[in-house]
């Protein structure tokens, strides 16, 4: 059973309508290609060691933009997402830092670590008002 096919342009436009969210579209995947591929190299212990020894030199081995490199050096994950990074690739950076998903994700919210943790324990962030940029509900 084939469902009615959605128009790709409408589909992609909708994906940009989520507040505080960058959906990993083809456009972002292309923009972030080398940033994400650099992250993948940190899945080898030897590469993690070399990266930790001299982050800047290691980053310079990859054809990333200066803005992308700076986002990694700053561990500014919102900036990295803005530059086409994807969270599952960027996880290789914060795992190298021995930082958990909970800690790293919290840094993107503007909340303190204890406040973010407390919000999650209280049931998480409500979707109310955060479902759409155009028509918040």
């Amino acid at each position, binding site marked *: *059973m*084939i*469902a009615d096919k*959605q128009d790709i342009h409408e*589909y992609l436009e*909708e*994906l940009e*309508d*989520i*507040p*505080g*969210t*960058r*959906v*990993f*579209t*083809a456009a972002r*995947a292309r923009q972030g*290609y080398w940033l*994400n*591929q650099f*992250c*993948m190299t*940190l*899945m*080898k*212990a030897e590469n*993690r060691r070399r990266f930790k020894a001299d982050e800047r030199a290691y980053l310079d081995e990859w054809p990333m933009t200066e803005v992308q490199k700076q986002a990694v050096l700053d561990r500014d*994950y*919102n900036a990295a*997402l803005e530059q086409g990074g*994807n*969270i*599952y*690739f960027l*996880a*290789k950076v914060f*795992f*190298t830092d*021995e930082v*958990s*998903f*909970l800690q790293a*994700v*919290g840094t*993107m*919210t*503007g909340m303190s670590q204890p406040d*973010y943790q407390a*919000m*999650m*324990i209280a*049931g*998480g*962030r*409500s*979707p109310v008002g*955060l*479902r*759409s940029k155009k028509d918040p509900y």
Partner: protein
Amino acid sequence: MARITAGVGASHIPALGATIDHGKTGEPYWAPAFAGFDWTRAWEEAQKPDVVILVFNDHATAFDMNFIPTFAIGCAERYAAADEGWGPRKVPDVIGDADLAWHIAQSCILDEFDMTIVNKMDVDHGLTVPLSLMFNQPEAWPCKVVPLAVNVVTYPPPTGNRCYALGEAIARAVASYPEDLNVQVWGTGGMSHQLQGPRAGLINQEWDQRFLDDLTADPQRLRHIPHIEYLRETGSEGIEMVMWLIMRGALGANVRELHRHYHVPASNTAVGHIVLEPIA
């Protein structure tokens, strides 16, 4: 003949695996997240499945930006746990069922599902955490596994409808396999969670519970939920729930719910778990 005897849905949150590995499941924060799996561990011991078709997503582990298969089926003899950046989990190798996997791949392709065939793949938390949740910490996993990796990272992922229909095709493939095998299908990932940006931490318990309800009550509604609804209602990573629809599609028209568990939070995520049995 091989038969699908049950479907299992479960989150595959990496922190759950780390907590098992470090022996911390009894800690007050974690105990309620794990409590709902005790029933299933006892049930699995009684069920003794021969093979689990384990639907999961690779989290930038075996597949980087160079290869993005929408549906990839593991046809290897065995799979090692991947090093995701903190060293591989110390869990047993996953033993494949290459004969069954190749049979499903061939059957699905003739059934117009153009599967990607994978003969070498390290498996990440998406696959190994559900095994730990259901089987705890054995010396060797008690069954063979056919990994089925779904792209839910780079948009567009497959539609829910396509996932459901793939489940139906898998059921036809299993039914035509001559060996007498007790097969389960597991759908993993979810439930509501968002791991990125200022909106991170989003949880929608009401939506999640309705999804769990309708796996039994109204699966036809679930298969037509558009991607944008998962994004708006369940956070950017809630899209993983399309993988549960492959499991559901494989179980046939009607199912009985045997067990359910839901807990918020584990790390950033709502833990969801369900056990379903097909009704002939």
